[in-house]
């Protein structure tokens, strides 16, 4: 019988949570720079990054030539893209407060959803370990 594997038990949710947190940083930076001349709003495709991230976690494992080597994985940065502005402004800033605010809120809600999933997984594991 195999032991409980965190990797399998938690599935994609820890990565999803991290990507959500990373995206909130990008969106918060957009909002903070809403009045900075020439600033271009940035964002990334959550779906693509999550797919890529999971792909990377699987593929970029380090080689071990000795069984005492500690295994590791390489983390890469997200592919950031530029927001397509709906209305150009004269100072070259492409931040639309309302769009960014909506995206930030949606991202926060999705973060909470991912967190709930992860939390339930932990609760399930705890129950399994206790065996009550």
């Amino acid at each position, binding site marked *: 019988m195999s032991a409980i594997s965190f990797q399998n038990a938690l599935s994609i949710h820890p990565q999803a949570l991290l990507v959500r*947190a990373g995206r*909130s*940083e990008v969106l918060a930076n957009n909002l*903070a*720079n809403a*009045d900075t001349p020439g600033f271009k709003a940035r964002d990334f495709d959550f779906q693509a990054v999550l797919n890529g991230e999971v792909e990377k976690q699987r593929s970029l494992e380090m080689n071990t030539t000795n069984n005492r080597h500690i295994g590791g994985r390489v983390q890469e940065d997200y*592919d950031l893209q530029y927001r397509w502005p709906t209305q150009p402004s004269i100072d070259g800033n492409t931040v639309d407060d309302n769009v960014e605010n909506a995206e930030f809120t949606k991202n926060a809600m999705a973060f*909470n959803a991912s*967190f709930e999933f992860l939390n339930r997984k932990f609760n399930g594991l705890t129950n399994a370990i206790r065996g009550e």
Partner: protein
Amino acid sequence: MSLTNVINISGSGMTAQSVRLNTTASNLANAETVSSSIDTTYRARKPVFQVLQDSLINRDFSAVDLETDVGSGVKVAGIVEKDAPLDIRYEPTHPMADENGYVYYPNVNVVEEMADMMSASRSFAVNVEVFNTAKTMLQKTLTMGK
């Protein structure tokens, strides 16, 4: 963690917007500050914002590249005086009038300043909102597994 960065970012946004509110308050307070020469007249002040980049020390050099560099907030690069011409009025009876009877009023446009004030306070509120949301998200992660 990224969420603590969000708090720093929105904090920098709040600081920048309060500087903007400060200059607006200064401009409005000095809107009627008259003077008897061009050089000594108050001129409207405007902050210039700039993207705040991570300090080089904290930076992973292999990742320095414009495509991945989002920046980590906003900073006030400087405060500049407005270029618009001063409001010169002929008021010979004014106690501050020069020998030709002219009084120099600042180039403060009150309507523009009011619009700026509204914009600054709204941007400030947006940053507060972001701050609060990030705080809730962080608090939530601390309760994981409970």
